[in-house]
């Protein structure tokens, strides 16, 4: 049993980290009243932008001459820039032009997935590989570098310390987001924008600015999830559509954690565990059964939704103006 946990938990964690990034980013976004269903697409864009950056760097300098610092910095900046642009597009459409948030978000997801697959396909052609994927193993080595003493600490090291810096970044992000949202004036203002923009506006809060900033920061955090997936989880191998439905899982996580980023730390690991549970179950090789297990996170989310709706506690409800555009002249 202990052996099982020792191999299961680290895998659940690394499976959960992209979800954690996505969920934290989406929670920050939703707290401003923007329901960004484009998160799935943004994570794709974040991933492929990182891949493009590192591909260019790897091919330009050659695998031997790569500088560890730059190897991390370049993909990271590319990823953040790509996600930021996605966030800006979403904001421009929904906040400035007041387009419908659901439609915009779904379009962004379709676009993001297509964008990822298009450039993924192009890079695969450029690299002239035999398999339909690009392997950036050198960059991945830098990204997945672990604490050197983790191994020497036995089971403790394996469960708590055997991850790369991005994993700890995700946890830090979740904690920072939680502190900012619930314990600072900035967070109070942000929540009020998501709850009741007219009131926030009357109190002198710049609703548009808050929505833009929250959504763009949220998009960048989500994008890092895509980067982590390619560079660490997938060991630098990009193949089209491999990221799968993790973006939707992240959105489900936001509901599961009832809009509390700190809870996404354990919740995303739980989801990650459920997602790969089938591998550890004897019948897991049966693909039909696999799908059933992968469904588990969504079922759990639905159950949480039912319970929070039934209990009807006001704090556990989504931000009151989630999904609605704000128009000052409406009042």
């Amino acid at each position: 049993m202990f052996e099982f946990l020792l191999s299961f938990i680290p895998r659940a964690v690394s499976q959960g980290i992209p979800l954690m990034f996505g969920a934290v980013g989406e929670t920050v976004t939703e707290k401003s009243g923007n329901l960004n269903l484009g998160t799935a697409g943004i994570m794709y864009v974040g991933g492929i932008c990182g891949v493009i950056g590192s591909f260019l760097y790897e091919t330009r300098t050659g695998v031997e001459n790569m500088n560890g610092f730059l190897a991390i910095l370049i993909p990271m900046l590319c990823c953040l820039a790509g996600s930021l642009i996605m966030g800006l597009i979403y904001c421009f459409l929904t906040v400035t032009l007041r387009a419908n948030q659901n439609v915009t978000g779904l379009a962004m997801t379709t676009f993001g997935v297509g964008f990822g697959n298009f450039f993924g396909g192009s890079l695969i052609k450029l690299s002239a590989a035999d398999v339909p994927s690009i392997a950036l193993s050198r960059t991945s080595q830098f990204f997945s570098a672990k604490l050197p003493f983790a191994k020497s600490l036995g089971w403790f090291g394996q469960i708590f310390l055997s991850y790369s810096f991005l994993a700890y970044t995700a946890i830090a992000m979740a904690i920072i987001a939680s502190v900012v949202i619930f314990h600072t004036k900035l967070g109070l203002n942000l929540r009020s924008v998501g709850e009741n923009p007219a009131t926030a506006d009357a109190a002198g809060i710049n609703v548009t600015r808050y929505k833009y900033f929250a959504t763009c920061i949220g998009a960048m955090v989500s994008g890092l999830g895509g980067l982590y997936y390619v560079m660490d989880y997938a060991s630098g191998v990009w193949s089209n559509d491999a990221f799968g439905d993790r973006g939707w899982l992240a959105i489900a996580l936001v509901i599961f954690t009832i809009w509390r980023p700190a809870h996404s730390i354990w919740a995303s690991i739980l989801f990650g565990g459920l997602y790969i549970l089938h591998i550890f179950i004897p019948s897991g090789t049966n693909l039909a059964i696999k799908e059933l297990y992968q469904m588990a996170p969504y079922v759990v989310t639905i159950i949480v939704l039912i319970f929070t709706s039934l209990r009807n506690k006001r704090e556990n409800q989504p931000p009151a103006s989630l999904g609605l555009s704000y128009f000052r002249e409406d009042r």
Partner: protein
Amino acid sequence: MENQVPVLQLKHITKRFGNITANEDVSMDVHQGEILALLGENGSGKTTLMNAIAGIYYPEEGEILVRGKEVSINSPRDAFELGIGMIHQHFKLIDVLTAAENIVLGLKDKRRFDLKAANAKITEICEKYGFDIDPNQKIYDMSVSQKQTVEIVKVLFRGADILILDEPTAVLTPQETDKLFHILRNMKADGKSIIIITHKLNEVLDISDRVVILRKGKYICEFVTAEADAQKLTDAMVGHAVTLNIDRPEPVDPKDRIRVKGLTVKNSDGVLKLKDISFTARTGEILGIAGISGNGQKELLESIAGLQKIESGSIAYVNEDGTEKELVGLDPKKITDLGVTLSFVPEDRLGMGLVGNMNLGENMMLRTFRHGHGLFTDRKAPYQLAEQVVKELEVNTPSVRTAVRKLSGGNVQKVLVGREISSAPTVLLTAYAVRGLDINSSYIIYDLMNKQKERGVAVIYVGEDLDVLLELCDRILVLCDGQVSGILDGRDVDKQQVGMMMTRLGGGEANE
């Protein structure tokens, strides 16, 4: 005090919304340490004027002086910085936050976010003026009066010394009102200036030092409260009767159609909206309902149409043969089938009755969609009806396939009223049917109602313009505080009498 510069001066303020002038050339002063009541009928521009001071609207003309200095107030923040705070009729609070969080919301404070310090300051304000709130209570757990208290504290917290309260007592019980007035007096003693918007005469006489009266967006006059009485104020508020020359044919063979007995209705907050209402609406007669808005008109019409939950009382529909049918408890569709139609024009015209994104024909279909054959609805008839309404009521629209939301307000109303009338009702309920319409369109609507009256329909007309009510209606039921203040004969009643009854139950003289 007379020698001091007024803390707030308005000079020749004019505010327009499109073609409509909400305030025209209004000038008034507010002094330090006084309570000024702003009195006027519905639509007299009180709230608009105050919104201009609070930074929500920007007036087209005129100037505002605060403590003798000319200022430009572009946003609520500007107003706060000048020490002006407004407590709106609809509270601007966030439900899931605590009182304290709502109070500090949006404050630009260089110091660290410190709710404890804020709590201390809130407690201090509360003790000073006699408020009673728990800073850590969530807004959704609060009663209406507690929410109002939070709003007032919020304004004081920001250092306001000119407070504007928009109909603060509309949502309060008498005991809560007394408490509020006590607090207002404390604030006045502390040197704060207070403007209170109201149309309750007894409250004006009770609390204010001075009264400024607005009518149809214009400054009419002002009184020192001590020298005024209810009669004087009513006269100034309603003005002299204007002759409009609306036809009023004699009712032909009126018979009882709707008998309402002891109707009592509470709203979702448990506040009594209608109390023991009894009246009869007769065929071939227009029954006008007068009252200041929010005194139960909406609830009354909705009760008859079956849209309100009724606490007690009965509403009987009298058939041709004299038998009665109880409407309370029937679903709206059955009531509609009896011929009771509701053309209710609420604050937002599209809110009830029409669907903005649908075209004229489709909106007509909302009444008739059940009349199709089998699975399919009849699409032809509604479009024909739409054509007919457009022609008869001179609706200005490119075609019957234009989305209703693209029409101007007046045209939207014509479509709504036209549709309701076309269903050949036996009872026609209308509210604010001519609100926002120009003179010509209004007369078309009056004409339509007279035609229905001649057809033997029992028409109930909720109106806000007293002059129109007096000229159009055969009888006028005056509502005050959700109660019947009196039922008058439209032919021999004057405006002052109705005005008095609107503001005071039974219209009795003020003997307090």
